[in-house]
């Protein structure tokens, strides 16, 4: 699948053409992480040096994905990616089976689970500002969430969607996307399980979004 998708260009304040696709291989993923990692480490170091609160420093900035290659291959998944101007701007991995709602009123109903989502470091304001720059593209995370909601609709899950948010992302999922914080998961380092009901997913997609 390859579909055109617009992102927001911070430099021109105008939409910019990108592409959403679902054929990111493990090799592509690792290559991208090798590309992203130096910028994340550099920014994290700058943040720590400037005395920024530790809570704002990316939790997994030191994470070396290349050591996880064998595990990634065992998991045998494919990722969604968004490219713009020849570079990958964000990646997401979905689980489309075996997950269900934790909300009492939707308990047991199937949903799409996002178990990985990340945007390129040059699109994250806190990181690039630590290096004296500004972010390049906006709404990358939003577009990936939109793709996940649409996938949920395609699967017949009515837009139901869940994820474990990192603490630095909770505000985005709860306040900006309108997801519900269902509870902290002790099996996942107390990360917050966030969920979209069909109604919230429809609101997120907005007018002309085709949520019906």
């Amino acid at each position, binding site marked *: 699948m390859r579909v055109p998708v617009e992102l*927001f260009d911070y430099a021109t304040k105008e939409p910019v053409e990108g592409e959403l696709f679902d054929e990111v291989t493990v090799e592509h993923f690792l290559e991208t992480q090798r590309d992203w990692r130096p910028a994340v480490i550099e920014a994290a170091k700058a943040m720590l040096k400037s005395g920024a609160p530790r809570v704002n420093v990316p939790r997994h900035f030191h994470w070396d994905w290349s050591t996880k290659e064998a595990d990634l291959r065992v998991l045998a998944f494919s990722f969604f990616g968004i490219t713009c101007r020849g570079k990958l701007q964000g990646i997401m991995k979905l689980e489309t089976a075996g997950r269900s709602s934790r909300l009492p009123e939707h308990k047991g109903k199937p949903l799409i689970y996002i178990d990985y989502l990340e945007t390129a470091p040059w699109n994250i304001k806190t990181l690039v500002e630590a290096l004296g720059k500004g972010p390049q593209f906006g*709404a990358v*995370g939003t577009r*990936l969430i*939109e793709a996940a909601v649409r996938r949920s609709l395609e699967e017949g899950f009515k837009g139901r969607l869940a994820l474990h948010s990192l603490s630095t992302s909770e505000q985005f999922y709860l306040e900006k996307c309108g997801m519900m914080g269902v509870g902290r998961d002790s099996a*996942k380092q107390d*990360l917050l399980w966030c969920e979209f009901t069909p109604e919230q997913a429809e609101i997120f997609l907005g007018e002309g979004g085709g949520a019906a």
Partner: protein
Amino acid sequence: MKMNTDKDWLSRRAELEDGCFVSVGGLVESLAEREQTATNVVPMKPAFVRFVQLARRDRRLSLEDFAEKVDVDLAELVKIETEEHYKPTLRTVHMIAEFLKVPEKTLLALAGLLQAKDPQFQKAALKFAARSAPVEKLSQQEHSDLEEIVRLLCEQ
């Protein structure tokens, strides 16, 4: 899949997102958990292999005889003793524990099928495994080692 083409929606959403962190942690935590499990479990396995070898040889039993007496598959027994990364089945470990009269749970931990929680036990098991030396007949030292590991298993 048809994405939203409304430019106002995009601008509003970009403003809301505002270049913030959007990272999701499920996969990272799953991989970290796998790594943690592997760290806790793998080092115990050589101690299990050595224990089975010494216990068998102490009884002067060939692999065939031991397999028959314990009532386990010979091929699996060979794999246990020769393949470093082979994971024994629950039934086999249960049968070996019963035959050698050692607690099943501690033997399961030694075999890497249960997570060992006692660091002292892990340390002692690794020490035992580290003294491994292939010889035909049990030496006095091996005999003492075997008694030591049996005592350790029974104390848990």
